[in-house]
């Protein structure tokens, strides 16, 4: 039996390494614009990939990696005290790759090798290939269980690092997510944070039509999670919620980030028909122009 509080012996907080400067909201907005450019260019160069699923979580990743939320050191990806970040909706990895490149894990030019033979940037994240990836994902529904295992390991070690898991709203169709949600509440892992990128659409339609998982916040609360809802494209609002994450007592936390699939590019926004489709050359030009990139 688990005994409440038995392994709660947190060590002093390790300061963020100086290699990752914390950005202001204005700087974060500019970084989000840069990440979207990378997402477009890398998926267009690959001729495949999931740009619209990447756009919806761009601000979430931007806030995590550059807003002083995630604790990491790109020069030391296996630093034991780092936070663990899991992109459970692995198909959105162009967004994570872009964030990792800008953070300094690897050169930004490497983003153009996305999905190409021999590249470390595979179509879905592969931890065996790319340092800084904590979980190989792509089969939906598995990331939260992995996160729970990591959170339990941190607690056994009395370590203070946190585990962050980004899930899609379509991904909530998977039963394993709810198995993990129940178990996380049982073990009261306050060091586990789930962020749902609720972008309203999945592969073949709107989530409300395919399989409605609303009311999401009520569901997570009833599963024993401290739950917040936030505009997932509002960096200021995101930061204020993310900064408090991990501080609930004996409870995991869920953040329902209300987002739009394809956010940032008018003709992709809200269009589920763009799932898993790169932009054409003409669309790429128009998209970059809309984002203010000449």
């Amino acid at each position, binding site marked *: 039996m688990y005994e409440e509080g038995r392994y709660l012996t947190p060590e002093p907080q390790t300061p963020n390494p100086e290699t990752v400067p914390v950005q202001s909201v204005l700087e974060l907005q500019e970084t989000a614009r840069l990440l979207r450019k990378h997402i477009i260019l890398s998926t267009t160069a690959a001729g495949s990939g999931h740009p619209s699923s990447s756009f919806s979580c761009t601000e979430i990743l931007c806030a995590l990696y550059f807003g002083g939320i995630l604790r990491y050191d790109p020069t030391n990806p296996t630093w034991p005290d780092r936070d663990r970040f899991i992109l459970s909706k692995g198909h959105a990895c162009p967004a994570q790759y872009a964030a990792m490149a800008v953070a300094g894990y690897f050169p930004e030019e490497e983003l153009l090798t996305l999905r190409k033979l021999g590249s470390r940037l595979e179509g879905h994240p592969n931890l065996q290939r790319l340092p800084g990836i904590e979980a190989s994902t792509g089969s939906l529904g598995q990331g939260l269980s992995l996160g729970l295992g990591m959170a*339990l390991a941190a607690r056994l070690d009395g370590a203070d690092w946190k585990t962050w898991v980004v899930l899609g709203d379509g991904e909530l169709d998977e039963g394993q997510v709810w198995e993990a949600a129940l178990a996380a509440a049982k073990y009261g892992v306050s060091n586990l944070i789930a962020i749902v990128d609720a972008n309203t659409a999945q592969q073949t339609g709107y989530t409300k039509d395919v399989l409605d998982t609303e009311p999401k916040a009520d569901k997570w609360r009833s599963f024993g999670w401290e739950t917040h809802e936030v505009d997932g494209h509002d960096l200021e609002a995101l930061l204020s919620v993310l900064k408090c994450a991990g501080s609930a007592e004996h409870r995991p936390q869920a953040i329902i980030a209300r987002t739009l699939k394809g956010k940032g590019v008018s003709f992709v926004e809200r269009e589920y028909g763009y799932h898993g489709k790169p932009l054409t050359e003409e669309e790429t030009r128009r998209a970059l122009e809309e984002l203010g990139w000449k």
Partner: protein
Amino acid sequence: MEIGKTLGLKLGKATRVAFGETLRDLGGEDPALVVVDADLNNSTRTDIFAKAHPGRFFNVGIAESNMVGVAAGLASAGKRPWCASFATFVMSNAYDQLRMSVAFPRCNVKVVGSHSGISIGEDGPSQMGIEDVALACCLPGFLVVVPCDEVSTIRATRALHAHAGPAYLRTGRANAPVIYGEDTPWELGKATCLRSGTDLTLVANGLLLGAALEAAAILEQEGVSTRVLDLHTLKPLDTASLAAAARETGRIVVIEEHLAHGGLGSTVAMAVAASHPVPMRFVNLGDQFAESGTPGQLLEKYGMTYPAILRAARELL
């Protein structure tokens, strides 16, 4: 019909019990050993570990997929987890998690499937692990081990814990005849020759090894010099011992408590075909589900006792 009875083999502990006790002992030696179970701990016998090390035991409820994922997460963060359920539940219910969260990232997770085969008896086909070995063998990088008795289960559990990488250990419900002495060698990835012979080789593992030894004793009386190999490790496979058996005895019967497809028989046949093809026969469950009954009745009805092995052997002689 009781396996091993004609030889007077002493009935020992079930392999699941020997596993649970070894896990408890290992837990005392390795503080990084953690265990995740899906509410079958008093059947898989991880409860023996849980009693000794409650802080490192996690019962995640009847949720095998999450069990495997949690174990993988623990492993990624430096723990050395074991997770256990009935063989058919962990392999069939959590296969995608074993593939994606464990095998693909080469996570150091040890998976145990108890209640393997049809010898679980009365609970019937829904509880019988009859496809688990095939599924485990299809997971890239997984080690796959099927011990036959309490002594070899202790060795197998210890060897797998010392191995840094994913592995599957198959255990059984029923008390198993003791085949290994304290001095019998057991090496991971190396078949154990339990009986030497030059006319025929019986390759078996798990509970049916006892039946193979019974058949070998009878064949010996009839003047057929019979070799018996305990092929406890399917991956990595001891191809050298199999090639030698094919070359030196010229006939092979493979015996397993599993479906015909993808298990020990297929694995051995592939190795023999690639080295020194010889006539072979296969004793297994075939392509069907079993039913409820006593373990002895079921093994007899579905052709996995020594008379069935004798019939298969005689086809080759």
